[in-house]
């Protein structure tokens, strides 16, 4: 990998590029306070609220694992896969303030065996794929602890 490669987001406007403490960029309805990710730009998703005004907000950088998996087969395009393909973990993470679950890959050095429902994770930036000039960045989850907490009573399991 050339150190001169430009680091660019794999998608514009979905997360901050602050390497030390990156955050997903969501929207918060200025009327009812409902969060959305990716950002809502037109009409609030809350059917009881017809607001069309939103603030861009940084979502919680930490959350707890709602569930997790690992991709054992190479996903089809438009996924840009490493060659040869290396299995990677994916987690669905509950954010407490926003009360929503957000998907993300889990950093590659985490084994799926080490994940549990309830594990605390934090958001990091990592390489999704590269070409000759660019390193394309995406958000991923990384466990902050190794011990699992007991999941609460199944909310909408």
């Amino acid at each position, binding site marked *: 990998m050339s150190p001169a490669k430009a680091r660019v987001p*794999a*998608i514009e406007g979905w997360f901050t590029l602050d390497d030390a403490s990156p955050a997903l960029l969501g929207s918060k*309805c200025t009327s*009812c*306070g*409902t*969060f*959305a*990710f*990716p950002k809502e730009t037109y009409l609030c*998703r*809350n*059917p*009881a609220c017809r607001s069309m005004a939103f603030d861009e907000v940084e979502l919680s950088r930490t959350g707890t694992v*709602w*569930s*997790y*998996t*690992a*991709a*054992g*087969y190479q*996903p*089809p*395009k*438009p*996924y*840009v*896969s490493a060659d040869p393909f290396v299995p*990677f*973990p*994916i987690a*669905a993470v509950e954010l407490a*303030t*926003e*009360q*929503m*679950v*957000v*998907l*993300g*890959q889990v950093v590659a050095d985490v084994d*799926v065996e080490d994940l*549990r*429902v309830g594990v605390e994770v934090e958001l990091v930036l990592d390489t*999704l794929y590269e070409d000759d000039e660019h390193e394309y960045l*995406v958000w991923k989850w990384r466990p902050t602890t190794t011990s699992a907490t007991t*999941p609460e009573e*199944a*909310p*909408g*399991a």
Partner: protein
Amino acid sequence: MPDDKRVAVLGAGMHPWGKWGRNFVEYGLAAAGDALDDAGIAWTDVQYVSGADTIRNGYPGFVAGATFAQALGWSGARVSSSYAACASGAQAVSNARAQILAGLCDVALVVGADTTPKGFFAPVGGDRRDDPDWLRFHLLGATNPTYFALYARRRMELFGATEEDFAAVKVKNARHGLENPNARYRKEVTAEEVLASPMVADPLRLLEICATSDGGAALVLTSLEFARRHAGTDDLVTIDAVSTVTPRFPQTVIEMPNFSTDSAATSSAPGPTFKQSVALAAYEEAGIGPEDVDLAEVYDLSSALELDWYEDIGLCKQGEAERLLRDGDTTVGGRVPVNPSGGLSCFGEAIPAQAIAQVCELVWQLRGRATGRQVEGATVGITANQGLFGHGSSVIVSR
């Protein structure tokens, strides 16, 4: 229930599921021909054609109703084409039923068929950064089995489901489908074989995730009055409810192809989950409950997902599906057999045909003609299915 909410199923037909590599229209025509023969109705007497669309076969797939009508020979019948991903077939049934119940026609033909590529379903091509279905593949590498696996893992951690339980679902369904002439896979498998198959989306293995198939299914639906006159009997198989509900805000379970759930920060989640609401709406419409059901055909996209459905259609409480399975309740011969056809496990997904095929199986079961997999004495059955982007699909059939 009152006659003015029921339509008769006079005919059911399928083209066998497989990997035939032919044009999807052929499968639809074969299924339609079988359904019309079964009903004893001529194509030219069909007043309404309701097609379920496929998005993988070009323009003819987007206008499936007209495609089948033209291929059957233009007859002037009225037409509609429906797309709702895996729930497309239920929407096609719903359209035909609504036309009949509104008194706008007496005889409708519902057809769905597909030809599928090999491997994972991929999004529609191009560089489409405003399409969440495209983006979830690009940014996450999240295939459909990724989502199935998230649900499966959660069952294991919350309810103590095991990999052996998931394998047992596959073993059961493989046995159910052995003698189904329309099933693609008719081979018994052992739990050991399932658990030795490659891991696709941890904890789900290759033999636990449904394949993509070619196939077709069709129904002839009519008004009760027409059916009584035509068949000369009151002993009819009828559709008593069709649920095509969408989720309620906030939808707090992650669903394909989304990156996140709705936020429940400002509105509390509705009581039933989306999948629960799919069947609840059908039960309410039919005026019955889960205790009245003799059998069910549910969308086993994965072995583990079948267990979720046991709970979501009310066969047992949350967390009890594994016990139901282990006790043999959902095996043919048990209290309430699930997927006696063999399910997607034996068929694989032919998307627009699948919800129609579920109804075909219930019809054959209620007529007592499901050779080799018959649920004895069945009089009420339910289907359950879900199409991505929030399409509920549940049909209640009775005799």
